[in-house]
């Protein structure tokens, strides 16, 4: 929304005395975020109002050679191609050296003296679009000679500054609409200005809800349900020149242009002007067409919800299928407009219109919000309606329109179906100060509220809970706050336009905001000596990140929570078990992921493509699927997974996995690597494993999956672990303290020749169990696994052994005995031969 500071200053005299920068700062800190401040003055520098003195056609062209009076001693020559240029007219001249306003701040097209068809042309006579005040390029802008120049106080004269005459030495504020969602009143300049007055500590004088009078015949208005339309006011006007566009560029055109709107026709311009001033949108029907549609001599206006299957052709030519929550305006029972959103084609005003039916109504913002979404209508009017325009001003705004349009009132109507009076709120000065952390006195609080239209009844100390009001005033009270006999209380009635004020916190916000949150003294809460609780899962995640990104040299990535159905299918997951987004941006982001590894595989592809080799990625994030069920809140159970993917084979991945688990506190020797349980469908069952404690799956990615994901032929390996499970498993496998032996260790290297197909772990166990039986401490390190040729019958497994007794130094005889037992056991258990 664009707000003209000059308009605000007209409504709030005190604002005119404040520096623009300070005014903008105050508005920004006490009313609404100002996204941008636009200074219009430089845009209209060297633009003047001039009189065309002579105007001769240039033969063989559409151009005219003009002599213009620019208030200088001699006329200036300008070549003009506009069809409406004529001698005697007042036009707008962009002088040499000036930038064409339309191009200001963009390509900055600077005018000079140039020759056109052999004639010198000094600058240009500008059309509305070139002045950046509209889209019109039919002809050049023409000025009504009776226009006042507010700077000189006289009628406009050739040579007058264009910006002076049309109030363009102005600052426009671009406002963030979102932060005014709850403030329908601020969507009109009057409401906005009232806030500015309040911020400046001044009372605001402008009553939008003036006394109303009915004129002419009564129009019958039937409102089916007051909750969809609390009030509907209307008037039928007979106009002599209903749709005659103004010949001249008017102050209204400029007013609309500053707000980002365009002049269209007199009726539309008046309705738009009043909407911008008051926030109340108006709609104009062709009254005679309205009667024709209804098939009667007198109008019956209906307001009701759409019925199933109802269609309506709108002003923009489109025919919509109404939804059940759409509010329709009907003539008799026939729909003629989509309430709050757009008029219908059948009652559109046009050049032949002589009688107009003006509508000024308010509708349920909830219904209009659905209408807006269903039909994609985002007009200035519906933007205001969906904030909940108050019912109190429909009639007075309509009255202003009647005055501005100046026709004869034929009939009027006003159905105020649902009157709502704001409820009074009681609050004490202490409550206000204790929530804000301030020490404002009661008089200041009261004045702050009354300035912006609240009615405040001050109750003396000790009378806060209720009782007879003892002082009722719109004036500031001098009563201060004192603890002697209890707090000062207020009974506060919000103005009718403040539909957002319901509870005492709303009142506290008004006081805090208008007096400036930045004036609140900063303090700290007092804190007890209690250490912060960091969830175990978060601690585990951070520990894992330290290990993975540290000693394991992996790269942490974050990938999207949502993946495509295609990816899930490609990796063999059951996409029907996924939670699916119905309004996703693209099919790429449709399914809540069940595991993280597939997302990482996609990132491996990208990185291989850009030339990276030999790397590992990991991610810790949430996963779920429907079959996990719901938690006690009835929402899907979520799990946090760690996934790791490396461009290496199973054993490279396994080394990282074991190192991680060891660092986390698991005993590497007790990790039970078993044949895969096929839990992760994208891992090759013959080249993957499952571990029970902690539960995880690890392995090489299936060839078919690699092919579908275009991951090349080299092995890619992955593991994925549920961290909730890992946490539970960790607490069970807490490490015990170790007693160190003070006796020397013996080292031996042995090689077992075992039949191919003997699990490594079995051979290893055949060695270690011998030492365990003898109560010796053994540390075994695999040295190598040797296979002479592929498919050979035997493999040689070499180990480095380091063993000792906790009780004594081992004698050489004892050592050779134990090695003998190892050889025997290896032969017995796995058919191994020591070589």
């Amino acid at each position, binding site marked *: 929304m664009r707000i003209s500071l000059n308009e605000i200053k007209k409504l709030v005299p005190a604002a005119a005395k404040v520096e623009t920068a300070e005014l903008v700062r105050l508005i920004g800190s006490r009313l609404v975020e100002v996204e941008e401040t636009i200074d219009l003055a430089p845009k209209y520098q060297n633009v003047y109002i001039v009189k065309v003195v002579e105007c001769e056609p240039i033969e063989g062209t559409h151009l005219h050679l003009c002599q213009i009076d620019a208030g200088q001693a001699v006329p200036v020559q300008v070549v003009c191609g506009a069809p409406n240029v004529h001698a005697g007219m007042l036009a707008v001249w962009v002088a040499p050296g000036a930038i064409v306003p339309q191009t200001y701040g963009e390509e900055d097209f600077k005018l000079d003296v140039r020759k056109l068809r052999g004639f010198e042309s000094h600058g240009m006579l500008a059309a509305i679009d070139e002045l950046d005040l509209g889209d019109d390029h039919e002809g050049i802008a023409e000025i009504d000679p009776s226009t006042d120049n507010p700077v000189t106080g006289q009628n406009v004269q050739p040579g007058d500054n264009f910006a002076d005459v049309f109030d363009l030495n102005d600052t426009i504020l671009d406002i963030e609409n979102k932060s005014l969602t709850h403030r329908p009143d601020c969507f009109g300049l009057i409401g906005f200005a009232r806030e500015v007055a309040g911020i400046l500590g001044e009372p605001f004088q402008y009553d939008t809800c003036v006394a109303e009078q009915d004129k002419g015949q009564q129009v019958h208005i039937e409102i089916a349900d007051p909750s969809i339309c609390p009030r509907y006011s209307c008037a039928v006007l007979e106009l002599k020149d209903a749709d005659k566009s103004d010949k001249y560029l008017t102050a209204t055109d400029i007013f609309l242009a500053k707000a980002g709107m365009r002049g269209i026709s007199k009726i539309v311009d008046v309705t738009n002007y009043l909407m911008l001033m008051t926030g109340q949108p108006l709609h104009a029907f062709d009254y005679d067409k309205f009667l024709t549609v209804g098939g009667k001599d007198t109008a019956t206006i209906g307001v009701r919800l759409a019925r199933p299957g109802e269609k309506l052709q709108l002003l923009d030519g489109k025919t919509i299928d109404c939804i059940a929550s759409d509010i329709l305006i009907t003539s008799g029972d026939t729909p003629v407009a989509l309430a709050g959103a757009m008029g219908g084609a059948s009652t559109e005003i046009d050049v032949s219109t002589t009688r107009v039916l003006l509508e000024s109504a308010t509708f349920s913002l909830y219904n209009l919000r659905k209408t807006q979404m269903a039909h994609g209508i985002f007009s200035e009017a519906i933007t205001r309606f969906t904030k909940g325009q108050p019912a109190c001003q429909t009639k007075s705004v309509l009255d202003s329109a009647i005055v501005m349009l100046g026709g004869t009132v034929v009939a009027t109507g006003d159905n105020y179906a649902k009157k709502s009076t704001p409820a009074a709120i009681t609050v004490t000065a202490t409550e206000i100060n204790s929530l804000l952390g301030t020490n404002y006195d009661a008089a200041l609080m009261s004045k702050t509220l009354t300035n912006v239209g609240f009615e405040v009844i001050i109750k003396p100390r000790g009378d806060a809970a209720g009782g007879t009001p003892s002082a009722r005033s719109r004036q500031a009270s001098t009563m201060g706050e004192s603890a002697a006999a209890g707090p000062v209380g207020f009974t506060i009635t919000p103005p009718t336009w403040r539909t957002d004020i319901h*509870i005492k916190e709303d009142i506290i916000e008004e006081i805090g905001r208008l007096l400036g949150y930045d004036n609140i003294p900063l303090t700290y*809460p007092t804190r007890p000596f209690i250490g912060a609780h960091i969830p175990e899962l*978060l601690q585990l995640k951070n520990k894992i990140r330290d290990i993975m990104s540290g000693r394991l040299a992996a790269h942490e990535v974050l990938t999207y929570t949502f993946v495509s159905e295609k990816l899930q299918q490609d990796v063999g997951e059951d996409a029907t078990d996924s939670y699916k987004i119905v309004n996703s941006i693209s099919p790429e982001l449709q399914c809540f992921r069940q595991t993280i590894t597939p997302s990482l595989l996609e990132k491996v592809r990208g990185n291989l493509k850009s030339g990276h080799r030999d790397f590992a990625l990991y991610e810790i994030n949430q996963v779920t699927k429907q079959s996990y069920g719901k938690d006690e809140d009835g929402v899907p159970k979520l799990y946090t997974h760690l996934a790791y993917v490396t461009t290496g084979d199973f054993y490279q991945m396994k080394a990282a996995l074991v190192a991680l688990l060891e660092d986390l506190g698991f005993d590497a020797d007790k990790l039970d690597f078993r044949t895969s349980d096929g839990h992760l469908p994208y891992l090759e069952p013959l080249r993957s494993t499952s571990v029970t404690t902690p539960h995880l799956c690890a392995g090489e990615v299936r060839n078919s999956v690699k092919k579908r994901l275009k991951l090349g032929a080299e092995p890619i390996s992955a593991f994925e672990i549920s961290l909730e499970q890992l946490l539970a498993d960790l607490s069970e496998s807490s490490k015990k303290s170790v007693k160190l032996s003070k006796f020397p260790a013996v080292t031996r290297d042995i090689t077992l020749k075992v039949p191919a197909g003997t699990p490594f772990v079995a051979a290893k166990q055949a060695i270690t169990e011998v030492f365990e039986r003898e109560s010796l401490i053994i540390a075994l390190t695999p040295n190598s696994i040797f296979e002479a040729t592929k498919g050979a019958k035997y493999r040689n497994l070499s180990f480095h052994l380091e063993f000792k007794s906790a009780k004594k130094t081992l004698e050489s005889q004892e050592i050779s005995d134990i090695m003998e037992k190892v050889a025997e056991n290896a032969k017995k258990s796995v058919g191994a031969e020591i070589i």
Partner: protein
Amino acid sequence: MRTIEKIKQEIKALGAEYAKIKSLAPEERKAFGESLNQKRQVLDRELQEALDAAEASTVEPLDVTAPAAANANIREVKRGTKHPLMTELNHILDIYAKMGFDIMEARQLDDEFHMFESLNFPEGHPARDGYDTFRTEEGFIPPAHTSTMQHRALKAHKKDLKNGGQIAVVIPGRVFRNEDVDATHEHTFYQCEGIFVSKDATMGQMLGVLKRLFEEYYGQTLKIKTQPGYFPFTEPSLELLIEKPQSLGGKGDGWLEMLGCGMIHPNVLKMAGIDPDAYKGFAWGGGIDRLAILKYGIDDIRYFESGKLDFLKEF
């Protein structure tokens, strides 16, 4: 310098001198012995230096700029990286924890009740549109803000209010908005929410705590300012801005919008079973991505979820 041999000879010669002690008068012996001992110490030191020098002369110098010795394998010590968003988030969480805030992580799939109802958004209210939420077929919502966790945090910590206690919790999490992605917009990003409830929480305390948070984060004192905002779940509602810190090139003029905040709406407290007449609270929430973008001068927000090693290896 004398050779090692020469020094050794001198030591030997000095040894012979000791024999003379016996021949001296008793009163002269002490002084003579001390002078010999001094000479011996000097010679011992000289010998050690000479020996060290001899040892050092066999050491070969190396090229400290080379990655390995000649004919040796060049071994690469690989380096891993942490994601910058997680690093920033943890930095913030560390500060919160030091300030005494418990941490509670947010869910990535939630429901209408937690996203809107529990936060005082009336059913069908246009304020719900501002959040551009995704929805699943079942009507679940990937949260559009971490405020979705407020209700859970209040309920879970309600017991802490007994005996004059407080609720002080921060909630980091991943959030989602249905919007088109470009260099400055992501549909997936991170936020951190905070709530504080006590018998006497004030807006002055809220502003004090938040100012302190950013001062800790940027390591300097900072000016703050506010602008009014609108959130259905806080009343009053504000946006907090901080002075652009020196580390980001601030010279005491520019402002950065950091977060939305406000006093917790009584309906939100009530819904969590906390009496709004007895307890007051404040809540706030802000983006984490922006902190990282500002800190590292990242020119495209899409890098965060790109998984590009070229990007990750910068951190």
